[in-house]
């Protein structure tokens, strides 16, 4: 029989034509809307899977990380700056010492002819130095690892994890790259994304576009209005990067009707949105509106003219963009694609877009609308979990806590989704096809995980706890016939039911 479906094939669809019972819905809730089941998760959800997800959104700390030890982006930027200065100073000092040692050696060679030696006067020769040790990861990388640890602790520890999944979604929507902003990539997510993940889209947009990480990543920090005081004096000018990506990627979406003039005008509007130099001890690395860099005069964006009100001019345009119907459609599509299907049902997209507009971008209401929509539950489980989702789900299934964050970081590198390092401002791809090629690598990781814990667990129990009624008879049989517990566990993590959601 020739296949009539796409991607997942007809078989999966066929499996799901019958309505899911309560337990299957609980399993689906965990895989599709959360981070996958842990031991006891299915039972904890009970009969009302939808209600359990919604209840999680009402928790006061949903999507938040409270860890006083994590640095603010300003503190992180200053620490990174100081670290680089110290490294520089060290290198200079080492060079000076080498030269001095050379001088001393020369002197000593001369002095050897005399009865006296000059060695006592040279306590800091190279021989007296402590042996050179591995300096370990630098401060920026240490900060990044701390942030990563907090992020994955959250994902591993959450009950269902819908709010946390939303954080990951928005963090990828508004991505920055640690290759450019290593020390503050984690702080960006905590400061600009998390506080608004169940708040208002406009607030998130403002927080993102004015965050030092974004301003640096997309070059706005050095974008100067050609007619501003700085522009006239330095002869430097506009950088459209953030202006363009805000329209194309963050709000309206590509080919949604804006023009190059809109891009240029908006880029001018946000000139002066920059960062206090990190060397300044108090506010270094923090957002700063610099009037001297700001393009003076009114600007027209999407046929609306905005008077020059300085910083407020940018906020006014962002607010209009946040409320624009094209933005609602763009966000609705991306949400539905992420959670439900590569080609999401149009009815679902329409529902979400309408809710977005009706509530003026209330993201909690939009997220609820997603969970309440029947299409979000009825769609076949055809989406391949992204590597990061799959890694967390695997660890949760195996009952693994976070021991060494570098292990996860390395895993994500291997699987092609390096943490906070998307290949482009568009973020990581969100369709299954993009991640299919990484399956052999996932098998390697599954084997490693299974070797770590596989001897200790009962594969049948784990299958019950993680797949429950979603497991096909073929899958159950494959697991039961495995040659060892570790093999059964590796197979479980690679079953279609576990890979897809």
């Amino acid at each position: 029989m020739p296949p009539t479906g796409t991607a997942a094939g007809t078989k999966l669809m066929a499996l799901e034509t019958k309505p899911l019972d309560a337990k299957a819905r609980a399993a689906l809730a965990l895989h599709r809307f959360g981070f996958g089941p842990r031991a006891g998760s299915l039972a904890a959800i009970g009969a009302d899977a939808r209600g359990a997800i919604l209840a999680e959104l009402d928790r006061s700390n949903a999507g938040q990380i409270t860890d006083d030890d994590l640095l603010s982006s300003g503190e992180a930027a200053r620490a990174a700056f100081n670290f680089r200065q110290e490294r520089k100073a060290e290198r200079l000092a080492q060079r000076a010492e080498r030269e001095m040692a050379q001088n001393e050696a020369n002197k000593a060679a001369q002095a050897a002819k005399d009865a006296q030696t000059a060695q006592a006067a040279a306590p800091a020769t190279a021989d007296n130095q402590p042996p050179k040790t591995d300096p370990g990861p630098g401060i920026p990388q240490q900060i990044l690892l701390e942030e990563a640890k907090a992020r994955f602790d959250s994902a591993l520890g959450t009950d269902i994890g819908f709010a946390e999944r939303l954080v990951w979604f928005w963090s990828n929507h508004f991505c920055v790259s640690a290759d450019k902003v290593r020390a503050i990539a984690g702080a960006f997510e905590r400061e600009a994304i998390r506080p608004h993940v169940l708040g208002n889209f406009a607030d998130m947009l403002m927080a993102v576009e004015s965050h030092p990480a974004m301003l640096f990543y997309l070059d706005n920090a050095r974008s100067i209005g050609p007619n501003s005081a700085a522009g006239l004096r330095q002869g430097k000018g506009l950088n459209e990067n953030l202006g363009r990506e805000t329209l194309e990627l963050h709000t309206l979406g590509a080919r949604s009707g804006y023009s190059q003039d809109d891009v240029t005008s908006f880029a001018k509007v946000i000139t002066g949105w920059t960062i206090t130099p990190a060397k300044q001890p108090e506010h270094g690395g923090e957002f700063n509106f610099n009037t001297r860099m700001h393009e003076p005069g009114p600007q027209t964006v999407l046929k609306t003219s905005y008077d020059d009100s300085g910083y407020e001019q940018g906020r006014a345009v962002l607010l209009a963009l946040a409320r624009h119907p094209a933005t609602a459609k763009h966000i609705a599509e991306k949400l539905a694609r992420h959670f439900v299907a590569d080609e999401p049902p149009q009815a679902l997209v329409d529902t979400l877009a309408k809710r977005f507009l009706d509530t003026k971008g209330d993201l909690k209401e939009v997220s609820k609308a997603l969970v309440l929509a029947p299409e979000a539950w009825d769609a076949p489980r055809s989406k391949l979990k992204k590597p990061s989702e799959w890694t967390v789900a695997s660890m949760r299934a195996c009952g693994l806590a976070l021991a060494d964050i570098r292990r996860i970081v390395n895993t994500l590198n291997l699987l092609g989704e390096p943490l906070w390092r998307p290949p482009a401002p568009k973020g990581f791809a969100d369709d299954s096809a993009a991640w299919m090629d990484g399956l052999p690598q996932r098998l390697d990781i599954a084997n490693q995980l299974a070797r770590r814990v596989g001897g200790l667990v009962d594969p049948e129990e784990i299958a019950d706890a993680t797949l429950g009624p979603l497991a096909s008879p073929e899958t159950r049989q494959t697991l039961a016939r495995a040659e060892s517990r570790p093999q059964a566990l590796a197979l479980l993590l690679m079953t279609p039911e576990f890979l897809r959601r």
Partner: protein
Amino acid sequence: MTIHAPSRRELLLASGALFAWAYVPKLARAEGRDPRLLVIVLRGALDGLATVAPVGDPDWIKLRGDKALVLDGATPALPLDSFFALNPAMPNLHRLYQAKQAAIVHAVATPYRERSHFDGQDVLESGLTKPGSVDTGWLNRALATLEPADRAVKPLNAFAVGPVTPLVVRGSAPVMSWTPPRLPPAADDTVMRLLDLYNHTDPALARVIQERMGLAAIAKAGGMGQTPPAKAGPGAAAQVRAYFTEAAGAAASFMARPDGPRIGALSFDGWDTHADEGAASGRLSALLGALDGAIGAVESGMGDAWKETAVAVVTEFGRTARINGTEGTDHGTATVALLAGGALKGGRVIADWPGVKDAALYENRDLKATTDLRAVLKGLLKDHVRVNDKVLATAVFPGSADVKPMTGLV
């Protein structure tokens, strides 16, 4: 921008290959000996009849037909005595056997008589008569009763405490683990099982696995009937062999050191040969060749300590006596235990041979068990490491008072 994708080697690998006790047994030391014991667990159930074939049994050819190892075939089996012959993939073991440094115990099995890998491995490693208990293993319990000599092993840099140890060495006696830098190759067998599952439930995933992993043997075993992709068997076999050899050789060189551990365990996966078993040339032949390489690597890695070494290669159960419908064998009962080492009184096949007539088979399908594997292990623990009878019958293999330690192994 550039993304640094770490090679497989750069990844942290958590699985230890060697799990070892950090002490030297005191009693043996008092006798002026310094014995080494290495237990190698083969997971997946080794086909004992394809490893050591009863070529002198009149029912042998009838049983296995053209899959029966024989002395005059295209790949002739290596004669052990007038009745048994060794798989031709194992020249090292054959040489050791001729030098009286290797022995075979045949028609041997644990007390477990069902056919689940998980449960079978639990029984094999726990040393209990029934599955279900996974807290401690018999080797660890043996260690716990041994009195350490005055000298504890120096912690070596290469050792780290392993997060999870195999059941056989799990327990209260502290165990160290060491991990080889080389990753074990992704088991073909695991891929084959996945591919089979995907073929039945998720064709898109099946396509990716087939295309990306390019394993000809798998496509064939999966009954795909397609032209196999270019990359195939020999490379994978060489990889397996390299991994076994490196893991075993390095383990031996640790145990050979004056300040190294004395008792250790390794495990090798992949023996569940349900389809296309390939005893003479194929998958099992490659695995046995890799195991033979590992035994050779232990011998050379031990150096002078080889003469005080005993290696015991054991598996959870055997496989069906007859070949099944897919040119493989299914889960069975009795199998072989391979013993090697300079300390052994070798050059013998130890078997109370049950025969392979239909009527002689256990439940008309498996080689019948006539020797209890616990007797073999108890014999080694008693005479080589000096664990006493009473402890063996109670703490190490509880309820095994009737199973006397096999004498004269070392």
